[in-house]
């Protein structure tokens, strides 16, 4: 297999992983209206937890060690890490949503992510500080006796199956009455409370689901790299995911795939490959990163609905499966009132 094919599959892997990540942020931000600038924190927490759950316990020695390790199979460590991250996200949400206006919330969320990032750099007792977690096992590799390249192809498939399941779940949630309550909160949280919805509870639920999705993405990133440390992520990388959401189309599950693919192929993985294989200089890569900002501005200005706009649910959509009900509405009664 050629090096290009390995690169290509790795890029596909990133597209899938960031599709998952942007689905989660889209729920919290575009569908519930919470500017969750700490989203990438949950990606990182998911990555660390996936590592910790699948690694054995290493007692602290020479500044390297992890507080605990469960030595679980990687396939199990990932969802377990995501559940714990989801609970953590709900806890953070419960603390901060209680009191804060949303514009302050945005700042506080970034500050929280920065504090925890600094903590991960300085604290060596939990996850080895800047060394971070290494040798995170490749799920299935040992069982199937395959090399790392073969594993990458296999695991891209595993990620794709996960993504399809998470896409279906997100679709089901957003089409449900629960998803409708989320959108009501996004449009006007005061009205949502007025019509009897417990806004606080739904916001926390939304953040929990978002945290779960972020953590799945983070867990996959850690498993692909077999390591995770403070230089694997930065709180401000959340901007890339926001851009994927905006470019793809806020509130659109398939749009998230488009946004993730566009950014990963043209602005992140693609330029990295070109820069390291042909240009032998990181400048091109850096310029591509700068261009993400420009892409976001242009997209938001000229096409705020994104590449795949959110689809409104029509009356036919709601009644479609029950044609008998359609007849109960007698169109003759309709008063065409131009108020």
């Amino acid at each position, binding site marked *: 297999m050629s090096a290009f094919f390995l690169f290509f599959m790795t890029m596909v892997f990133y597209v899938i992983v960031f599709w998952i990540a942007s689905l989660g942020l889209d729920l919290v*931000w575009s569908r519930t209206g919470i500017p969750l600038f700490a989203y990438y924190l949950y990606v990182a927490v998911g990555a660390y937890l996936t590592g910790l759950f699948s690694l054995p316990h290493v007692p602290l020695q020479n500044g390297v060690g992890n507080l605990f390790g469960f030595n679980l199979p990687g396939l199990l460590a990932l969802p377990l890490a995501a559940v714990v991250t989801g609970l953590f996200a709900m806890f953070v949400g419960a603390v901060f949503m209680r009191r*804060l206006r949303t*514009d302050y919330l945005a*700042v506080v969320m970034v500050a929280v992510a*920065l504090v925890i990032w600094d903590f991960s*750099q*300085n604290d060596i007792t939990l996850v080895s500080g800047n060394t971070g977690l290494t040798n995170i096992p490749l799920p299935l590799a040992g069982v199937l006796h395959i090399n790392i390249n073969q594993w990458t192809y296999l695991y891209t498939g595993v990620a794709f199956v996960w993504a399809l399941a998470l896409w279906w779940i997100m679709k089901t949630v957003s089409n449900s009455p629960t998803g409708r309550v989320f959108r009501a909160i996004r449009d006007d949280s005061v009205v949502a409370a007025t019509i009897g919805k417990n806004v606080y509870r739904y916001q926390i639920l939304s953040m929990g689901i978002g945290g779960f999705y972020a953590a799945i993405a983070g867990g996959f990133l850690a498993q692909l790299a077999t390591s995770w440390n403070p230089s694997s992520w930065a709180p401000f990388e959340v901007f890339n995911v926001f851009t994927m959401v905006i470019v793809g189309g806020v509130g659109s599950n398939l749009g998230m795939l488009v946004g993730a693919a566009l950014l990963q192929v043209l602005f992140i993985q693609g330029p990295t490959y070109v820069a390291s294989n042909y240009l032998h200089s990181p400048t091109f890569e850096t310029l591509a990163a*700068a261009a993400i900002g420009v892409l976001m*501005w242009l997209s938001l200005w000229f096409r705020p609905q994104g590449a795949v706009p959110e689809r409104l649910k029509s009356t036919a959509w709601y009644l479609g499966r029950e044609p008998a009900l359609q007849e109960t509405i007698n169109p003759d009664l309709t008063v065409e009132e131009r108020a």
Partner: protein
Amino acid sequence: MHLFWIDFGTGLATAAVVALAATGLTLQFGITNYINFAYGDFMGLGALLTFALNNQAFHLNFWIAAPIAAILVGVFAVIANQLLLAPFARRFSNPALTMIVTFGLSLFMANVATVIWTGNTLFFRMPISVDKKVGPFLWSPDVMIVMGFAVLVMVMIHLLLKTTRLGKMMRALSDNTSLALTSGIDVRQITNVTWFMSGLLAGLGGIALAVEEANLTVTSAESYLFVIFAAVILGGIGSVYGAMLGALAIGLLTETAPLYINAGYKLDVGFFIVIVLLLFRPQGLVPRLGRS
């Protein structure tokens, strides 16, 4: 010599840096309802342009290059607002969207700066300034100039806001944008002046930071963004005098903190203050008088 007083002295120097930047940020807060995440990059731009004028082009003396660079950052801030931020803020009522736009500006500026100035540590071309004992403190002459300059700037801002017509209009616009709109103030012009001042002060703050740290990288100012926020929030968002007081408190706290906690956490003191204050006292510690 007691270590506490040395750190206290460093804290005063940091306070000078933070005061310059925080004043600029709070002036801008006064007329916008969103938070500018690119402000740290405005600071960095000041130091980098100084480096360019000082080391790369023209080879100007540092003390001449610095004010020119700061003015250029002011102009840049006006342009960034006119071309980018203001149109988005006008079009989208949701401040979170404008904040994401400023996020994008930050990413853009940081990456372009990396292309131009690389990721290496840079040094200004100026005589090495050796720390001297001043009472219980340890300061280099350059740092003392920076501190004196910061105090001078604070006094000038006070005079500008309190005694000039321009300052009165700036305060009016900051206190109540809609009222100012109807009272015949040229809002567009005052907005431009405010953004210019904000950029100028950011630039000065960034240069002062590089002098205090005796070097700079393209991202060194970015990490101070939340320390600056902390000062602004501590003083009450939009309050200039509050920001000055907040800067003093934050400067002293961050520099004396390493005496008691891991030095790696010194900037987190600022982040932590941001979190706790916004949770429990978002109006800041210094009440803004004459406001309802």
